[in-house]
């Protein structure tokens, strides 16, 4: 059985060198760290906020905060783990501001059983990508993941899209390992259930799902 592999992997040693230089005031070194991680931070921020302008702000604020607080970074974790933790907090704050009627937290919706027991058991797994054009598929994937509670989609994005480990994800989100695992299972199953609506019955050349 093939397993889902983590795709994370980085040169930690040179990263520590860059962090040390940046701590001493070397802006060039910090700029290298920005170039290394800005795309990842942007993707994560977009997934949490659903808003490009907010995501841009999050990228700027997260890197600035990291720079200003570099002294507090002790090197017990990777710089990237520490940076994402800052970015996730910034992104959640943006989300809260946009939805002033609601409190947004990573602890939301944990008790719900929605999507835990599968209802949809049609097998659409072989090649759903071929049913839709690239941009249409992108819209479906965005709409589907945006429907998940923030805590679920954040865990899914860090683990399955960014390829981080359960331990790193737990550290980034300030959650326990069982809490990450439980959210990941629910996120995966809910996405699967929702995607089935688009993928199960449509054959190539058919009309709407």
């Amino acid at each position, binding site marked *: 059985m093939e397993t*889902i592999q983590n795709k994370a992997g980085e040169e930690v040693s040179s990263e520590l060198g860059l962090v040390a230089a940046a701590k001493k005031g070397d802006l060039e070194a910090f700029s290298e760290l920005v170039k290394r991680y800005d795309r990842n931070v942007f993707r994560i921020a977009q997934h949490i906020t659903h808003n490009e302008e907010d995501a841009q702000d999050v990228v*700027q604020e997260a890197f600035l905060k990291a720079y200003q607080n570099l002294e507090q970074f002790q090197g017990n974790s990777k710089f990237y783990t520490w940076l994402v933790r800052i970015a996730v907090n910034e992104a959640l704050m943006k989300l809260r501001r946009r939805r002033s009627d609601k409190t947004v937290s990573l602890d939301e919706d944990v008790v719900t059983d929605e999507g835990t027991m599968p209802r949809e058991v049609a097998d659409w*797994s072989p090649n759903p990508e071929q049913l839709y054009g690239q941009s249409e598929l*992108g819209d479906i*994937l965005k709409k589907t993941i945006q429907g998940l509670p923030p805590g679920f989609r954040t865990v899914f994005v860090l683990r399955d899209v960014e390829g981080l480990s359960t331990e790193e994800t737990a550290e980034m989100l300030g959650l326990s390992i069982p809490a990450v695992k439980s959210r990941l299972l629910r996120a995966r199953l809910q996405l699967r259930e929702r995607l089935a609506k688009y993928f199960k019955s449509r054959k190539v050349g058919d009309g709407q799902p």
Partner: protein
Amino acid sequence: MNCKDFLQELTDYLDGNISAAVRAELDDHLIWCRECHVVLNTTKKTIEIYRDNQLYELPEKLRTQLQQAIMTKCKSAKQARKSSD
């Protein structure tokens, strides 16, 4: 092992974080349970499709602008710190 037990182990099964004994039990369940087999395949595909289709790539032009904005802010922060020392 029933379907509920299978689901509880699904994430570890997909991630390969599972003992040989539990894996054998799950494989055994999969032989006769078509529904769990479908849930496994479609969940695996769900993960792959999100991993392979990055939804929010940062356009190069915007990326350059953001990098410049970040570094300008960091420079100001550095100068502000220096002058307050």
